[in-house]
């Protein structure tokens, strides 16, 4: 794993906080551009499965901003587009995968949209199986504990994932051995159609932490500062050897679960309520209020991203599909390596959001 970006220290001064919020906004805006493009690609039949992070982006990016890139490891789930871009993964890589292209450096077009994997960015491979990655994050934390390395594992999952046995076994082991891991639940109150009250008796997922005697904190997932502060505190606690924490970021799921879901189980009032909590306009209002950004600059950046993402989508669409005959390559060690992200013309590995 390569050493990467500068550490993000506690923003003491107001201007540092401004800079952090500005950077978080940039990645969230990038997510939104890719989000909109993906739904269009789905309608055009260019991507047969789409699922995006709309409503979760600020919670994802603001929590990733508390990581030491290149030192700490990230274990996101399929909705974590914000984590991916905050780690320096580019829209082009994601689009290559979404269209099943051979040059997709993450899965060679073998997994669905957003099922990224990048050892360079210490991003553990995403699978569609709910909660399976949480024990992997604890395994990474165990590895750091064995080798006495100063590396913290962060992992993200939904409210539905908290019901899985794998989540419990991982949290219990991590707490028992005080392993350096941070559990971040993006609680959007839904697991496809199943509402929170049918998923669990908890009204706040953070309370689950009491069952493991580890800190559990509930934050408004659309409040970038609150998420960043809570994550930084949990990461430092893990780094200090005091063990894991659970953060519950309450977020809205603004759209359907995925392109395969009609969202018909939600009425207009629920959809409107989710839309009203969109974290992007809230963050923009905050930045404009702080004089860090003007409405015009915001719009310009959105349009720039839209153009960039469109170009990326067209470029990805033009790239070749995999040769059918290579289907069993990489089942076992020994085959020629596939292209890494770095060598398909993505330039020097962008250090992620936080050191432009």
């Amino acid at each position: 794993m390569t050493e990467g970006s500068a550490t993000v220290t506690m923003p003491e001064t107001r201007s540092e906080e401004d800079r952090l919020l500005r950077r978080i906004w940039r990645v969230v805006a990038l997510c939104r551009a890719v989000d909109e493009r993906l739904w269009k690609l789905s309608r055009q039949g260019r991507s047969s499965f789409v699922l995006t992070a709309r409503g979760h982006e600020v919670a994802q990016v603001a929590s990733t901003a508390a990581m030491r890139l290149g030192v700490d490891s990230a274990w996101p789930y399929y909705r974590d587009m914000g984590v991916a871009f905050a780690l320096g993964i580019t829209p082009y890589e994601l689009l290559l995968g979404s269209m099943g292209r051979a040059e997709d450096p993450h899965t060679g077009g073998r997994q669905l949209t957003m099922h990224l994997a990048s050892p360079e960015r210490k991003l553990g491979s995403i699978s569609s199986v709910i909660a399976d990655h949480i024990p992997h994050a604890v395994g990474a934390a165990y590895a750091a504990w064995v080798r006495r390395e100063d590396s913290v594992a962060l992992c993200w999952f939904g409210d539905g994932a908290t019901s899985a046995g794998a989540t419990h076994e991982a949290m219990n082991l991590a707490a028992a051995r005080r392993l350096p891991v941070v559990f971040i639940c993006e609680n959007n109150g839904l697991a496809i159609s199943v509402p929170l009250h049918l998923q669990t008796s908890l009204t706040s997922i953070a309370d689950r932490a009491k069952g493991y005697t580890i800190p559990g904190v509930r934050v408004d997932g659309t409040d970038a500062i609150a998420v960043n502060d809570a994550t930084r505190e949990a990461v430092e606690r893990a780094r200090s050897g005091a063990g894991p924490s659970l953060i519950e970021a309450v977020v809205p799921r603004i759209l359907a679960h995925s392109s395969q879901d009609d969202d018909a189980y939600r009425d207009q009032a629920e959809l409107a309520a989710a839309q009203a909590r969109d974290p992007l306009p809230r963050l923009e209002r905050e930045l404009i209020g702080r004089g860090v950004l003007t409405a015009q600059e915001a719009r310009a950046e959105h349009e720039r991203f839209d153009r960039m993402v469109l170009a990326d989508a067209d470029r990805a669409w033009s790239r070749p599909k995999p040769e059918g005959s290579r289907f069993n390559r990489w089942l076992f060690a020994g085959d020629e390596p596939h292209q890494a992200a770095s060598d398909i013309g993505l330039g020097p590995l962008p250090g992620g959001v936080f050191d432009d």
Partner: protein
Amino acid sequence: MTEALVAAPPEGITMIEAVQQALIEEMRRDPSVVVMGEDVAIKGGVFRATKGLLEEFGDRRVLDTPIAEAVIAGAAIGAAMSGLRPVAEFQFADYIHPAYEQIVNQAATMRWRTVGNVGVPIVLRAPFGGGISGGIYHSQSVEALYCHVPGLKVVVPATPRDAKGLLKAAIRDDDPVLFFEHKKSYRRYRELVPDDEVLPIGKARLDREGDTVSVITYGVGVHHAREAAAALAEEGIEIEILDLRTLAPLDHDAIARTVGRTHRALIVHEANRTMGIGAEIAAFIADDLFMDLDAPVRRVCGQDSHLPYNAPEEQEIIPDPGRVAEAVRRLASY
């Protein structure tokens, strides 16, 4: 509203409608039948298999569960031990594996380990199979993984009529039945299905009579074989198609009858070749029916790989009518 659901449209019903009708009919017939799984109640199932059930039977008999496959199977087992007849849905067969412990170590052993005093009348249902660009976790064929463990029945219907008749039989069966429905067949075929028909678990069905090669298959393999048969008939090759319908217990007699007639056996299934159910069928033929064989026992199966999202690799892996026809030609000319 549900009433209409059960009445079949003139040109017959699809497999997904067959599943839905079987659930409704059996829940109406027997109050101990319940349905549980993720998104089965409010949403009516991600494939609409349980559409209308919540409205007619209420939120206790139609249970939206947390995402927790071990307790979905485990609670179904405990409820069955307490007198209910649960039908548990796993949203995709790819997500049944967290319940593997409860299925092979609890459901499969219960009656045997209690000398017949405690049965587990449950059905574990799941959409399965590839060919829909679903990727590794929406395309798996898992049926073979349950045929090595005694105490389980494994059923894979190929047609709407078999889906309905066998699901009704599975729900009435006093032992655990794994019931896999191929996603690609859910809406692709329509068939007139007699009301209240219950079909026998453990019995294969002769789908097509022929004399040259016996194609022994199930699920989408039946449809591949039918397409191949049409092409081959024009070349004067009449294949026999045996639809196994049940993989555990295997209908050895039906296999013996067809191989006894054609003396050439070709096994077809989408699941991976190595240690697919085709291996057990070939082993049975190579032993008990050795004297009947005029040619090697061939298999046309999925390649030994995971199924990818991208189409080129997926099409290279999963069998199709062309490969079935090609294998028949080679076997016929052996």
